[in-house]
């Protein structure tokens, strides 16, 4: 049994931290002070991805179908591997286009003494005369925790531990407050991996969080690009990150998340599981998470359907 606990926090106050995600390290530090030493030593925490609490519906590849208002405001059932990533993608592809999806999925900015923070709720830009009918939407943070053995000796963490975590900068000034919205445990071994079980298929790998190649952290060796990645022409984009522990700052060299590489390994299902639990140095703090998908499947479903529509139109002309 390999168990992860998924957690959804509601943002209650402005967040003044990393704009890409709440780092797993920040979540770990917030949790560590509330648990006993053995848990502290063995718990591993993913990056927290921002999720808008908005109307939406399942994209095709998921095990469930349909949609709901406030789709992003609660955890959804997980039966297949794809379901794990519903809220892990920055583009939040489940958001409905009949609403202003890009306005829902970008943060309102607030300035606090010269620094830019994200607001916990979004106002919708309505004309001045209708100011009173403004609708607001709340942001959530999605992450998961697991024990380093993969078993269930560390998790689930108590709701008391997860409720009221403070994240990001200026925490002593009331910023970054969250409350626990929902939590759920998932056994990775019992999920449906049928999309990855076709032995003939070829797969690609999408980086959900940065992969660390170099670190100033004591004892962390440099890593090369794993042999089972086959990068695309043009190479890989790199980005600097940092890890903050107490008041020490360690610079990290990473391969930036969001990129897609080919998969050249022998065992997609096993690789997929290790991608959920993350690989490489600092994987315990959220780095090195990835998702596997068949090459035939487009990350942008509308693009595939528009391409098919063009193809049939071209066929009709012949």
């Amino acid at each position, binding site marked *: 049994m390999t168990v992860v606990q998924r957690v959804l926090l509601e943002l209650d106050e402005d967040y003044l931290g990393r704009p890409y995600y709440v780092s797993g390290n920040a979540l770990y530090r917030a949790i560590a002070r509330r648990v006993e030493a053995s848990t502290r030593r063995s718990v591993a925490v993913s990056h927290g991805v921002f999720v808008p609490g908005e109307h939406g519906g399942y994209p095709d590849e998921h095990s469930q179908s349909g949609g709901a208002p406030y789709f992003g405001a609660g955890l959804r059932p997980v039966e297949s591997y794809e379901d794990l990533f519903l809220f892990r993608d*920055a*583009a939040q592809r489940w958001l409905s286009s009949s609403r202003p*999806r*890009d306005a829902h999925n970008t943060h309102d900015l607030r300035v606090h003494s010269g620094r830019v923070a994200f607001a916990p709720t979004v106002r919708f830009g309505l*004309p001045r005369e209708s100011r009173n009918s403004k609708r607001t939407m709340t942001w959530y943070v999605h992450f998961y925790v697991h024990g380093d053995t993969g078993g269930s000796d560390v998790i689930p963490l108590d709701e008391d531990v997860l409720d009221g975590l403070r994240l990001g900068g200026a925490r002593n000034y009331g910023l970054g407050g969250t409350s626990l919205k929902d939590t759920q445990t998932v056994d990775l071994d019992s999920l449906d991996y049928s999309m990855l079980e076709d032995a003939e298929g070829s797969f690609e790998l999408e980086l959900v969080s940065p992969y660390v190649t170099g670190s100033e952290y004591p004892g962390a060796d440099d890593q090369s690009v794993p042999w089972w990645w086959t990068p695309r022409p043009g190479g890989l*984009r790199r980005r600097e990150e940092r890890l903050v522990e107490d008041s020490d700052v360690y610079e990290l060299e990473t391969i930036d998340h969001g*990129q897609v590489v080919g998969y050249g390994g022998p065992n997609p299902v096993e690789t997929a599981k290790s991608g959920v639990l993350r690989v490489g140095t600092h994987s315990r703090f959220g780095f090195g998470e990835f998702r596997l998908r068949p090459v035939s499947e487009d990350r*942008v479903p509308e693009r595939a359907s528009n391409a098919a529509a063009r193809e049939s139109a071209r066929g009709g002309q012949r």
Partner: protein
Amino acid sequence: MLSVYRHDVHKSRGRSHEDAAAEFAGVPVNEPVPLGADSDAALLSRPRGEPAQSVKNHISPFRLSLVTGETATSAGRVEGGIRSALAELVQTEDPVEMHAAWLESAVASIFNESVYYPYTSLKFHTLLTAALVDNYRAGCGFDDLYLVVDRSEDAEADPRVVPHRTVLVLPSFALRITGEPGEKPAARLGAAPAMSWADVWTRLPEHPFDGDDGRMWRVVDAQLRRIQSWSTALQFIEESYGWWRAMRRSSRLGGGEQ
């Protein structure tokens, strides 16, 4: 190419192609765009199918801003008024100057490309349409196209602008749509036009942002990984840059992250 830049000017009055006047400020507008480039550019920024009102209470040709959340009308600030600024924009007679005028235009970015999708931008829809027409005429299909980053040689110089193909220009970099990316950092647009901005942006082997405004560009980059509509995203980059500079001038913003 002139007619491509003029084809959607009627949208400044919230009119559809069917209801629009054929002439504005003495030049013909609302002429058909060749090679299906107009509908392809529209698919990059809006969903397929019948338009639906996506922001309650806002049916207006004025664009809503993702940066401020408010209507982006700087009507009072457009010198001589919106109508005459628009007239000046479309009356240019040289195609290359016309492209340059649209890249620089502030008035074109006041409007959305559809009243139903108010965060989209008329300015960037038009520039994307022109880039598609020019590439299609050169024999490229949509699936041959790339988004390319052009950086300036040094921080002082402006990046190189390629007529009709450059879709966004800022002091240190430009973005371009082309079938021949050469050695430049580039990402494929994919098999067919769709709202795919975040997907193409995150696949670029190099992002144009770095340097002095580190924190600002990280915030902009993080948001760009969440946006799907092309014209909305390009407008967001341009507008964020202006917003940030204005904030700095009024010294409410420091530089670093911590």
